[in-house]
């Protein structure tokens, strides 16, 4: 698989060269503490191709994804700046897109955003001016047509050259519609899509087979989301309390089958088996490691799953 490279994104180059890409994730601090970003970045450096910087995830206020992304990039790791539709209208979005590109951000990943109801500011007014599909189309228009939504043209060479990311979730409902929603994002022009945490492999395989059939994986890089289970408790919690995550009973019993002190190890083992399978799953271009607040485990996983060294492209 070799495709045209349109941006300066390291992630895009890795994917375009046909390498099995690896992305990580970093949650910015709930403060202006630069040192915390730098500390987390250490675990990710050279272990992943780029790192998602979450945008006020779960609607809890944190350092902005742009700021944390720039700090990360100063440390020598590329950022995938996330942008949610919850907090900005189209004016702020376009402005931040231009600003991010001007400051050296190469990847922008868009999401609807968790509803603020469960965040730390449930009294907030939400925005949702554009949704994630609309936002993908907007960034593509700004980049490829050099136009803002207003029609205002961007002089040649001043367009935001961003590798556009999005999310897909094979485990939310209605199941049969999920691939069609991903197709809308592909149609809107998304360059890469990362999935929600995968535990339900059969459902994921089914999804990917259909995405491949529909030709979606020819147009967009699909990356599989991996979050190792830390414990049996976490597995049960994810199964019962997190909407849009499916944890099969076999996975629960596998975690239950090992003593408590061995569960972390077992979780990592499962994750590595998943990564191995992903390497051989048609249409899967890489893995997205979501180890928020567990960033120090990234080197272990990358090593055990034989994902390093990361390619220099």
């Amino acid at each position, binding site marked *: 698989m070799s495709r045209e490279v349109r941006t300066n994104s390291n992630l895009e180059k890795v994917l375009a060269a046909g390498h099995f890409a690896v992305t990580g994730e970093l949650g910015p601090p709930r403060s202006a503490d630069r040192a915390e970003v730098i500390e987390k970045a250490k675990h990710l450096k050279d272990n992943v191709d780029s790192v998602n910087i979450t945008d006020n995830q779960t609607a809890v206020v944190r350092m902005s994804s742009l700021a944390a992304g720039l700090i990360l990039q100063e440390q020598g790791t590329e950022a995938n700046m996330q942008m949610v539709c919850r907090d900005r209208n189209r004016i702020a979005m376009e402005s931040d897109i231009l600003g991010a590109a001007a400051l050296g951000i190469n990847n922008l990943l868009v999401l609807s955003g968790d509803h603020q109801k469960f965040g730390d500011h449930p009294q907030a007014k939400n925005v*949702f*001016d554009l949704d994630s599909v609309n936002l993908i189309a907007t960034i593509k228009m700004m980049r490829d047509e050099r136009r803002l939504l207003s029609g205002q043209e961007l002089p040649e060479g001043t367009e935001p050259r961003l590798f556009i990311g999005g999310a897909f979730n094979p485990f939310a*409902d209605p199941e049969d519609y999920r691939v069609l929603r991903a197709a809308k994002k592909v149609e809107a022009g998304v360059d890469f899509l990362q999935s929600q945490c995968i535990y339900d492999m059969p459902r994921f395989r089914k999804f990917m087979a259909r995405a491949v059939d529909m030709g979606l994986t020819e147009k967009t890089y699909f990356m599989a989301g991996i979050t190792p289970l830390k414990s049996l408790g976490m597995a049960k919690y994810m199964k019962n309390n997190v909407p*849009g995550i499916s944890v099969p009973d076999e996975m629960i019993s596998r975690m239950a089958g090992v003593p408590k002190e061995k569960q972390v190890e077992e979780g990592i083992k499962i994750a590595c088996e998943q990564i191995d399978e992903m390497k051989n799953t048609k249409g899967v271009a890489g893995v997205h490691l979501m180890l928020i607040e567990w960033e120090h485990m990234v080197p272990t996983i990358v090593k055990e799953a034989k994902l390093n060294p990361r390619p220099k492209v």
Partner: protein
Amino acid sequence: MIVAERKPFDEIKSFIADKKKVLVVGCRGCVTVCNAGGTKEVGLLASELRLDAQKDGRDLTVDEHTLERQCDPEYIEELLELVEKKYDAILSMACSVGPQFIVARYPEQDVYPSLNTLFMGGAKQHGIWVERCQGCGNCVIHNFGGMCPISRCAKSLQNGPCGGSADGVCEISKDVECIWHLITTKMMETGKAETEFAPAQPIKDWSTSRDGGPRTVVREELVK
């Protein structure tokens, strides 16, 4: 209809803490239908206020009156006779349109809203009201199988469902149905999901909504 519910009793009480003579004004429009501010609810509130004053040994007169509507000046005019009786406060039990019309007509009069106006919707069954419209000013429900994602999706998505949709319910609460689950299920059942419904819904123009500023409708042929 406009769906509303009565404000907490203590809040209403606080409006009239130092008043001696109060008029509770109901509305026979939407709020009668949603059992929030019709003749009967006026009676209940007035009675509770009287009992409360009796309990504290306060001197309070509470009169009751229900207008045909509180959103038309001709009916507001009907209050003139009562307003002349010099009430210390009027408690309007209409949607928030009512108290504004009363204040506009009787600027000297102290007027308080007794309801919290919630949404435009209908009765799912007697006693249960649901939101159906947000007045975006450009109805496109026909594109969504006759369902409105603006009022019924917690994120007003044009291209849902988001990743928080599970078992037909929304991520914000198990009591909130995911409208996108219903829309997409219908699209799949009618075979439109991969054809008519496949293109992304365009970016919504919110200028016809409240975002474009307060709205006015003028129908020249009706204006005298």
